């Protein structure tokens, strides 16, 4: 796998580049505002508690996802396109996939509380992207074919889904702890049931792990296309492979053994924290 944002530079006039991506940045700013509003409305909906506010938060999240999608289409229409391989663009893409997946889940009414975690994280991601995209380097992946984009699309989607699994796991652990301590919530609080959260965790892992596996494989092909070697020993490569191995064990344990829902939730939280550090944290640090 390659480090994002490195490769053969393509020479283009910088003025044109800045003008082209201006709209992408503005759309990201609008998306971030919508996600922030969704997070605040969802928080209010849980605190008051009012289901109508949670529905409103889901709608805001939906509008945000739509604008976010338009931002990505602009990102591709820019000439030259803003590279998805750039960290801000990749993080923004992960947030978009996570929001889209959450919106599918929100159709099940009692999962609406998920938006209280998804929306702020999506806001932070798009806000970060909006700040960093103006400084993004032009595409630097010439000569590697479609592998860089395939890698980011697959790995980013997998990371997003496993992120949602981690969020569902966090909510599960909170709810489990409360029920075990005999401190249940009131019936009006629109909090998802343990069973629903466990199902989200299971589905997200079932979809996210194959995607991240494909992301690892396409990353290896990218390395081979760019460097002529499948394994270059970069920090990103090593940490990502370790994270993938951890998830492989988690998936095997989850789907083949008698692992309880609480342990699965805890694994999803810890697993995602490690994966995020391995994929994004190491990239930023190194």
């Amino acid at each position: 796998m390659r480090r994002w944002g490195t490769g053969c530079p393509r020479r283009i006039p910088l003025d044109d580049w800045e003008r082209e991506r201006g709209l992408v940045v503005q759309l990201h700013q609008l998306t971030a505002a919508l996600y922030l509003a969704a997070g605040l409305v969802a928080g209010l909906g849980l605190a008051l508690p009012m289901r109508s506010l949670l529905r409103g938060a889901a709608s805001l999240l939906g509008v945000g996802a739509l604008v976010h999608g338009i931002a990505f289409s602009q990102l591709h229409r820019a000439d030259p396109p803003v590279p998805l391989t750039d960290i801000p663009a990749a993080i923004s893409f992960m947030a978009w996939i996570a929001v889209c997946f959450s919106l599918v889940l929100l159709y099940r009414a009692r999962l609406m509380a998920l938006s209280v975690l998804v929306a702020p994280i999506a806001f932070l991601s798009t806000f970060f992207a909006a700040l960093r995209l103006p400084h993004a380097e032009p595409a630097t992946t010439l000569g590697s074919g479609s592998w860089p984009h395939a890698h980011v699309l697959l790995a980013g989607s997998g990371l997003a889904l496993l992120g949602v699994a981690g969020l569902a796991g966090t909510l599960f652990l909170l709810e489990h702890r409360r029920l075990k301590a005999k401190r249940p919530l009131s019936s009006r609080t629109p909090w998802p049931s343990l069973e629903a959260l466990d199902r989200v965790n299971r589905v997200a892992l079932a979809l996210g792990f194959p995607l991240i596996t494909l992301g690892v494989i396409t990353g290896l092909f990218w390395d081979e296309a760019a460097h002529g070697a499948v394994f270059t020993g970069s920090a990103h490569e090593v940490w990502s492979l370790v994270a993938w191995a951890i998830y492989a064990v988690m998936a095997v344990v989850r789907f083949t053994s008698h692992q309880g829902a609480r342990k699965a939730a805890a694994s999803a939280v810890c697993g995602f924290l490690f994966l995020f550090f391995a994929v994004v944290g190491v990239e930023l640090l190194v």
Partner: protein
Amino acid sequence: MKILLVGMNHRSAPVEVRERYARDDVAPVLQKLAASSEIDEAVLLSTCNRTEVVVVTRALEAARLRLQRFFRHDLAAADGGARENVADYLYEYRDGDAMGHLLRVTSSLDSMVVGEPQILGQAKAAYADAVECSAAGPVLSRLYQTAFATAKRVRTDTRIAERPVSIARVAVDLARQIFEDLDDKHAVLLGAGEMVEMALRSLRREGLASIAVANRSVANAEALAAELEASAHGLDEIGQLVGRADLVLTCVGGAEPVLTREALSTVLIARRDRPLFVIDLGVPSNVEAALEQHDNVFLYDIDDLGEIANENAAARHRETALGEAIVAEERQRLEGWFMALRAAPTIAHLRRRVDGIRAREVERALGRLGLDATQCEAVDALTRSIVNKILHAPMVSLRREAEREEGLAYLEAVRALFALDDSDDGSDPRR
């Protein structure tokens, strides 16, 4: 016109007294009451916790005596008459206090279990009965419509009905926090008992795929199973039943627990990650406390459920202050409307008097002037317009002032100034 409310409830009378005055079919007695000359309008509310009658009357004392007789003879008639002095158990509210009490009752602020939802339905049924018997008129209709709207406001603007206060409802609430849907869940009832059966029935209303009843005596299990449309089993099948179940309700007699961690260890492993909600209503406990250490087992005994129910009841009581504020606000508005009704006869009388004078004077003038039809109509319209414009401001003031207690002085002043009490033939009293 006065409003009078007389009744008994869980605070003023013991249950054995309340039972004697409670009626399922209120229509016959209500029709009889409404036919009384002292009563203009009446609504009778009869539940297991209260029997109250609210009436509109123009003869307050006579109505009071009639309602005393109503309780003593009409309501207690089925029991052969009152055995006790019913007056000892009755309370009485008039006008504003009666309105306030009615608003509190329908809003469930006066209920034994504050915030319980049944009372609103019962009040609606009582009002519908009164409408059907033609016993409810415009005053009580307005009063009840306001009461229903107030009850709705109290329920939505406060958290008075938010938390369940019965063991059965607490159990349902907990089940909904553990399971996404109860429609595909299997329940097992071990033993028998009123409370555990109530909890099971509440859960069933939310939807259960199946129920199994297990008892030491299979015959007893079969009897209960027939009632609950469940399957019957002996206690020796516990392991197998728990393995399939999502909810287990226990109320088995005996000192030793029937569900132990050791006995269920293989069953719990076989269940994989499926949660198991255990409601233990047995005293002493039917379930070994160690079972709770299992991640997927959520064990609540009667003390846990009772504690949650008590906390919820306390939370509801804390919300009553907000509910009372809403009731006070609505009561004030209702009292204003009721007092404004006093102005209606005076306003009508005044308009009739002034219009009579106008009509006579116009007729006299037109006879002298010899105008054609169009001109006569113009003069008539002109005088009407002048009268309307002159009367508009005083009438608005009268209506507004009548909503206050002090407004009575305005009404009296108008009656004296225009000599409305002297004659009622529309003629000018000075002539």
